[in-house]
């Protein structure tokens, strides 16, 4: 309950920050997006329609109210509601990030446990170097290399887009998650097309996140391997194998949940870059596009969604954490 109470001021501060930042932006939104292209009267009209002629305080409270009901206005340039951007492009981002996250967990936890278990051996060195290198490589560089190799030289996988034009056109969108939509339609060729396009971006993004997990899991394992209960298990004559797997590994993985939650923000940032690299029509790519077009209402809406998502995810993570770790109570 306390945890929930703490989330409220965080949301408020984040929303206030977003609102403040967008007002500092040069020129007012309508002027910035449409200036010079429409008449002065129309500018005035659009301004009134967007509620920008009201006093700042009123705009602020209106924004807060709208943010909480997820009614974030309509973009200036192409008249889309921000809500539809969230549904259409957000689902593309969700699809990408979920698969990437699964890859990150498998690689990160696997390599991390191996490195920690065989501390100071070549396995450890190799695992750590892999972690450091993967962290050191910007996701757009890894993506670029993957494109060079797998779509350029080998020609195995397409380098951009979410689906081929035909699939995009024919696909009936139910969930907006193409992997699921193609299955619902029972069209396996389309499913394969969509999967093929998902591989490079999701692996690229997944490896990025795995770097952080490798480090964390390794250090955690080193700590738990020193725990009294591990020593006690050994003293009871339990075989080393079982000591490591049942006593050390399990406990080493508890904090991963917390940190995995913290990775969410990185995941979102990484998604912006990955989407840009692979021409993935996600919400991050849309954000950059609207920023380039100076469509502040769209930008404000998308950033608000990001901020809310971050708070909600961290709240969920804490709850899950309290559930699996009896020492944590809120």
């Amino acid at each position, binding site marked *: 309950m306390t945890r929930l109470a703490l989330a409220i*001021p*965080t949301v408020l*501060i*984040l929303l206030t*920050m977003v609102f403040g*930042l967008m007002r*500092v*932006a*040069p020129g007012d939104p309508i002027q910035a997006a449409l200036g010079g292209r429409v008449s002065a009267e129309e500018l005035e009209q659009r301004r009134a329609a967007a509620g920008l002629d009201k006093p700042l305080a009123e705009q602020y409270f209106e924004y807060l109210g709208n943010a909480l009901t997820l009614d974030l206005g309509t973009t200036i340039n192409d008249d889309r509601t921000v809500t539809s951007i969230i549904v259409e492009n957000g689902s593309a981002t969700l699809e990408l990030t979920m698969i990437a996250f699964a890859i990150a967990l498998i690689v990160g936890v696997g390599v991390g446990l191996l490195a920690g278990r065989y501390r*100071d051996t070549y396995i450890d*060195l190799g695992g*750590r170097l892999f972690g*450091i*290198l993967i*962290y*050191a*490589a*910007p996701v*757009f*560089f890894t993506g*670029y*290399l993957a*494109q*060079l190799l797998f*779509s*350029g*030289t080998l020609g195995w996988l397409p*380098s951009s887009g979410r689906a081929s034009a035909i699939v995009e056109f024919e696909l009936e969108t139910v969930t907006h998650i193409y992997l699921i939509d193609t299955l619902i339609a029972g069209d396996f060729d389309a499913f394969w097309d969509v999967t093929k396009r998902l591989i490079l971006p999701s692996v690229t993004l997944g490896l990025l996140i795995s770097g952080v997990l490798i480090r964390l899991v390794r*250090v955690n394992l*080193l*700590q738990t391997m020193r725990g009294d209960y591990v020593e006690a298990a050994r003293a009871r004559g339990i075989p080393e194998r079982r000591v490591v797997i049942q006593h050390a590994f399990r406990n080493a993985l508890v904090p991963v949940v917390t940190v995995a939650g913290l990775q969410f*923000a*990185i995941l*979102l*940032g*990484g998604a*912006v*870059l990955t989407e*840009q*690299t692979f021409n993935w029509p996600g919400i991050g790519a849309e*954000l*950059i596009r609207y*920023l*380039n077009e100076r469509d502040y209402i769209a*930008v404000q809406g998308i*950033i608000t969604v*990001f*901020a809310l998502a*971050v*708070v909600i995810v*961290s709240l969920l993570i804490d709850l899950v954490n309290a559930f699996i770790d009896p020492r944590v109570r809120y």
Partner: protein
Amino acid sequence: MRMPRILRPFTQATGMPRWILFSGLILVAFFVLLAIFAPLIAPYDFDQVSSGGERFSKQEGPDGAHLFGTTVQSTDVLSRVVYGSRTAIEVVVLALVFSLTLGVPLGLISGYLGGKLDRFLVLIMDALFAFPYLLLAIVIAFLLSDKLGQGVVTAAVAITVVYIPQYFRVVRNHVISVREEPYVEAARALGAKPFTIIRRYVLQNVIQNVPAIATLNAADAILTLAALGFLGYGIQPTEAAEWGYDLNRAIDDAGAGIWWTGLFPGTAIVLLVTGFTLVGEGLNDVLNPVIRARRLRKPEMPEAEEEPTRA
């Protein structure tokens, strides 16, 4: 002469941490040298497209005249990579100076004084920390670009905003644990002013954590700078050479099999970030007692009369 505390990890490190620390230092030193002597090392200027009245050919593969080839704008890739290290080092140094001078004092004051100010600052910093850092940097860079232009300073400030909360958190949390230590209480009992206590007793203890975070943040800063450049909100191509921008241009080349425009700047990023990360990890290994390997001194035994049989 007594060695400053802050340098001690470099001499105390042994084994793998030592190896990690020193290979990191070598990598970083290499790029710092490239940055300082860029005009001497680079064959051409970063935006030079012709030499002796002859225009360089476009997207030409590596050869004698251009060791790393040329870009789509006919600039020399090697020169851009070399000058890029200058940009990267400049931004990192500026960002570190900015975020240290703001983050550390804020953390000290907030942690030591506590109370309402502390609670307020913690809330703000936590909110900043929770926000996707890249988005924050993009928005700040975007907002500043009108006032400061899209140069080194704008990029550094955008990165600073992202890292202040980290220094703040670490320093504040450490201060809180140090604040109640007997020696601080003793100083307080002797009537030392808060400022003196913070400076002489608290700061001295807290500052030890900073090098490890600072080097890890430097690594992060390089990545953020490149990401900003890649998205078009970093340093303008007319201002300086920047690796992220080069990679952005290179993505279009990938399909055509042109690898040299992206591979070299990308590798430069990886190497420099790896360098900083290795230094940070090495420092962490040495400084963090929880994961520090215990080095037991072998007990000295009197020489055995006969060779003991090994079990």
